Every structure is written in structure tokens, then in C-alpha cells.
């Protein structure tokens, strides 16, 4: 059983999706909700067990169908992959829980689609094969297309149409890049690619470079890096807030793919092609932080503001990918977990606030007072402090660690001012948003609407997400040790190549 453990975070959501479509769950809403919550908790527990198992022993390499490594497809459950799988499963479980308070009734097939999305994201994190990465990208995309349309109105049709067309073009570019890489290197296994890239000579080097750089386009599109980030604010702001919270993990799939490809395949050992993507990633990442900061300041409604916060966090993460050393990558992982959870929490809080403010919803204008100012205000303050990076919450720890890890490199000259000024912009924009959401009332509407109290299940889900932030500070010691070990394992390329190519039996 234990050797199949690595495949379970993919198989359980897949089974869950199918089971939830079948008669007893498909017909009865109550049964569907209960089974969906149970199945998502099972996924969460299996992911946590996988993380502890991999943490205490060596990475698991699982050859699908027992076809060994360079020929068959392998799943590689190392520390990085299992950490992100656990994060995805946790977010999926919280979103399923939150949806049980009524949002899942607004459209069809919400629960199966969430499980299919978790399947795609987990698969993308676990796979050790670039073509398989493409397949899992498509799985998560088709689930996300349908979720984006969930309970949709005209605005979301328009955003979905643009999102789908952009991603279809992205998929074509991905396939062209994979075709070039396969034509030059004769393999698509990540470990095998890493082994073969340094041996290239002559014109093949340039072909491989074209293939590798085309991949930047794809990952930048998924991760919303500067010239390709324009879809994100519209898409996230027009999706249901609950769905947008789940989408918080999807930009991180792009960042993860960059980290994997440009550290393992085109990293230190890649001979002529070593660090070939870094200058591109570095420049684009800094520009993304600037644009995201401007977007945050210019946002007219709260959800668009959060979507722009996601853009800023992607810029920060990619800048750390471009720095490419062990401590920067460890800081990246800490910040990635923190920003995913807090951005998801912010989307859910935006939903609660919008429901209680009546017609003005989450627009940043004077409006009706919320019905539960203390509860929502506290949630908002915690999330805002965390996302801006003020002490004492996890954003601050992440920010200090990021600044410290970039201190040694000469890149700090550029990175520090941009990052700190954008943090100031975030602080200004988020406090202004809080002021107008909670304190800015119109006279005639100063009474709160009766009977719009938040459903307790929703509050539990939001608190579960927010509680992660102080916990990440309290347990900052063990967590940062784990992140450092993860980062060391990622940079220890030779060991992982050997593990995949020989241990796949």
C-alpha cells in the first residue's frame, strides 16, 4: 500500500469527483455535501500523511503502470511537491466547507468540479514528466473554466471567454515548446532532461534554448507575470469569490513549474544553458510587482484589489525564483504558502462583506454598514496585516526572510526599493479599502440589513484560513527548517536525478 501512497492525492479527488456525480450524491444535496466534505478531508489527511512520510524517509518515486523512469511516466513526491499538495488539499477542503453554506446551490456540479480542480493541481505538483504536466494543466484548466462560469452573469461570461481563449493559445505554445525539447533531447522526463541538457552541442543548444524560453511564455501566462497578467484581475473579480479563493493556488502552479524547470533542468548543472531564463524572469518579476502595486492603488472594488494583490505576490515569488539560491527559495516557499492562504481568506472575507453591504456590495464607496462589524472587522484586520506584511503575523516573517535572503546578492539594490515601496502602496490601499468598507456610511443607509448574518460554517472556514497566519509565526522555527531542507533537496539535482532514474522500479 505504502508504495502507492504518492498516487493517492491524485486518485482520491478523481474518485471523489466521480462518486459525487453518481445517483445518491448527484440527486440529494445533503448527501452530496456530507460526502464532499468527507472526501476532501480524506484527501487532506492522505496529503498530510504523504508529507510526513516523505519528510521522514526519502522522496517517493512512483512509476505509473510500473513502466520505469525515462520511458514511462513517474510521479515524484519530494518535499516540495508534497508541501504544495498539502496546501492544495487544505485549500480545497476549506472551499468545500465554505460552499456548503449555500454557494454550491447557485449552479450545477460545484462539488465534483472542485475535486477535479484539486486533482489537476495535485497532479501538476506531483508529476515528474513535462508532458504529463501539460495534461494536468489541461485537467485543472477545464475544471477552472467551468467553475468560473458557476453562478455566472454576463460579466463572467465575458471574462471566461477571454480566459479560455488565452489559455488555449498558452496550451498550443506549451505543446510547441515540448515538441522542440523532445525533438532535441529525445525525452520528456524532468530528471532525464536535466541529465541530457548539459550534453548538448552545436545547434542543438539553441534549439533547446528556444524550447526552454517558450516555456516561460506558458508559465508566465499561468502565473500571471507582467505582459501576460492582464487576464487575472478581471477573471478573479468576476468569478464567484469562493471560486476566486480556490484559484489562489492556480497562479502558484505556474510559479512551481518555473521553479522546477529553471532550477532542475536549466539550473546550475545545465552547462551552456545554465540560468538562461534568469534575466527574463528577474526583469519581468520586478515589473510585475510595480504593475501589481499600481493596480492595487487603482482598484475600484475590493475583489479587484485582492486580485491585484495576487499579482504582486506572483511578482515577488518569481523574483525569488530568479535569484536562485537555497535561502531565497526557502523564503519563497514560506511566502508562497502564506500568500496563497491569505489571498484565499481575503476573497472569502470580501464575499461576507459584500453580502452584508447590500447593493454597493464590495465596491469601495460609501454604503450600508455591515451587520457584524466586530467579526468581519477583526477578520479583515488580521488578513490585511498579514497580506501587507506588518508584524506580528506571517506576512512580516515572510517579508523579513525575503529581504534577508536577497541581502547578499547584488540584486538587492533593485529589489529592496521596489519591494518595500510596493509594500507601502499595499498598506495605503488596503487601509483605504478597510476605511471605506467599514466606516464610510451613507446617512440614509446607516442601518444594517437585518438577517444577513454570516452563516457559521462560512465563519469557521474563514477562521480556519486566518488561523494559519499566527500559526505560521508561532511555529516559524520548525517551518523554516522544513523550507530550508526542501530548498536544499530541490537544489541537490544529482541525487534527485539518480532517485528518479534508478529508484522508479
Amino acid at each position, binding site marked *: 500500500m505504502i508504495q502507492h501512497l504518492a498516487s493517492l492525492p491524485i486518485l482520491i479527488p478523481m474518485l471523489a469527483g466521480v462518486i459525487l456525480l453518481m445517483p445518491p450524491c448527484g440527486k440529494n444535496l445533503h448527501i452530496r455535501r456530507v460526502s464532499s466534505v468527507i472526501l476532501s478531508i480524506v484527501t487532506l489527511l492522505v496529503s498530510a500523511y504523504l508529507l510526513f512520510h516523505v519528510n521522514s524517509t526519502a522522496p517517493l518515486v512512483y512509476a505509473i503502470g510500473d513502466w520505469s523512469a525515462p520511458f514511462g511516466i513517474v510521479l515524484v513526491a519530494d518535499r516540495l511537491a508534497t508541501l504544495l499538495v498539502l496546501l492544495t488539499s487544505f485549500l480545497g477542503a476549506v472551499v468545500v466547507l465554505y460552499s456548503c453554506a449555500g454557494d454550491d446551490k447557485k449552479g450545477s456540479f460545484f462539488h465534483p468540479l472542485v475535486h477535479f480542480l484539486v486533482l489537476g493541481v495535485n497532479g501538476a505538483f506531483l508529476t515528474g514528466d513535462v*508532458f504529463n504536466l501539460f*495534461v494536468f494543466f*489541461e485537467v485543472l484548466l*477545464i475544471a477552472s*473554466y467551468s467553475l468560473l*462560469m458557476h453562478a455566472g452573469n*454576463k460579466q463572467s*461570461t*465575458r471574462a*471566461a*471567454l*477571454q480566459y*479560455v*481563449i488565452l489559455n*488555449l*493559445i498558452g*496550451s*498550443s505554445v506549451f*505543446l*510547441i515548446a*515540448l*515538441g*522542440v525539447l*523532445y*525533438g532535441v533531447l529525445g525525452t*520528456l522526463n524532468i530528471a532525464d532532461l536535466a541529465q541530457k541538457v548539459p550534453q548538448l552541442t552545436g545547434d542543438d543548444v539553441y534549439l533547446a534554448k528556444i524550447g526552454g524560453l517558450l516555456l516561460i511564455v506558458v508559465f508566465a501566462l499561468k502565473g500571471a507575470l507582467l505582459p501576460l497578467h492582464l487576464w487575472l484581475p478581471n477573471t478573479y473579480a468576476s468569478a464567484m469569490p469562493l471560486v476566486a479563493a480556490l484559484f489562489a493556488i492556480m497562479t502558484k502552479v505556474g510559479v512551481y513549474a518555473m521553479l522546477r524547470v529553471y532550477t532542475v533542468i536549466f539550473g546550475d548543472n545545465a552547462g551552456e544553458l545554465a540560468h538562461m531564463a534568469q534575466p527574463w524572469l528577474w526583469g519581468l518579476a520586478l515589473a510585475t510587482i510595480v504593475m501589481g502595486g499600481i493596480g492595487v492603488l487603482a482598484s475600484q472594488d475590493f475583489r479587484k484589489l485582492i486580485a491585484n494583490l495576487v499579482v504582486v505576490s506572483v511578482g515577488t515569488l518569481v523574483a525569488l525564483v530568479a535569484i536562485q539560491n537555497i535561502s531565497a527559495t526557502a523564503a519563497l516557499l514560506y511566502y508562497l504558502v502564506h500568500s496563497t492562504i491569505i489571498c484565499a481568506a481575503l476573497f472569502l472575507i470580501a464575499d461576507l462583506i459584500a453580502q452584508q453591504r447590500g447593493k454597493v456590495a464590495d465596491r469601495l464607496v460609501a454604503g450600508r454598514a455591515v451587520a457584524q462589524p466586530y467579526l468581519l472587522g477583526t477578520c479583515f484586520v488580521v488578513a490585511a496585516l498579514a497580506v501587507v506584511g506588518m508584524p506580528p503575523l506571517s506576512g512580516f516573517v515572510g517579508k523579513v526572510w525575503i529581504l534577508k535572503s536577497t541581502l547578499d546578492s547584488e540584486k538587492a539594490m533593485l529589489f529592496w526599493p521596489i519591494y518595500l515601496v510596493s509594500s507601502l502602496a499595499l498598506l495605503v490601499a488596503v487601509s483605504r479599502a478597510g476605511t471605506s468598507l467599514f466606516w464610510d456610511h451613507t446617512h440614509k443607509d446607516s442601518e444594517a440589513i437585518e438577517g444577513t448574518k454570516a452563516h457559521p460554517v462560512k465563519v469557521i472556514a474563514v477562521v480556519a484560513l486566518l488561523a494559519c497566519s499566527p500559526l505560521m509565526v508561532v511555529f516559524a522555527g520548525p517551518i523554516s527548517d522544513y523550507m530550508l531542507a526542501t530548498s536544499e533537496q530541490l537544489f541537490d539535482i544529482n541525487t534527485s536525478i539518480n532517485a528518479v532514474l534508478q529508484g522508479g522500479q
Partner: protein
Amino acid sequence: MEVLYASCVGVLVACGIYLILRARTFPVVLGLTMLSYAVNLFLFSSGRLTINKAAVLGTGSEYADPLPQALVLTAIVIGFAMTAFVVILAIRGRADLGNDHVDGHLVKSSKEQK
């Protein structure tokens, strides 16, 4: 053969990109389809273009590379599903937005203006 094959892929990509840059959904869908045809041909050629090589073991002395064929099959299936989805979405967009522009700005029709 290489020249013919390469120019086929090139022409398909060029047509696809031209159509994708149009502002209406139908040409964009056609463009995406053409682009995916081009990508499929390109993937197929990454296993080298050869003639008279066996696809099944034991039927000849030389074999064609089976992996690109498997990749193309996967890409065709996924591309087909995605095209079907975007067609449905385009029809829904036409109904919801009242026009078939990709950026969906509501151009008021003459009826609404009256």
C-alpha cells in the same frame, strides 16, 4: 518532404495567428483550431520524418518513434475537448452579451437605442 511539411505547419500557424487576432469569436475559434492542427503536425515531426518504418514491433527491421504518436493522440483529444468547450462558451457569450466580440463590449443594437 521536409520543406513541404515545414511550410504546411508554418502556413497553418500564420493563418491561426491571423484569425486569433480578429475581434470576433467565430474567427478566433477557427484560428485556435488551425493552431492546434499545426501544433499536432509539429509534435508528430519531433520524432523525425521517416518513411516505411514499422509502427508495431516484430513487423520490420526499423521502427518509428512511438512516443510522438502517443503525444499527438493525447494532444488531439485534449484539443478537441477544449475546442468543443470554447464553441459552447462562444455561443453563450453571443447570447449573454448580445454580440460576438471577444472583448464583449456591449455595443448597443439599434433596437435598444430606440
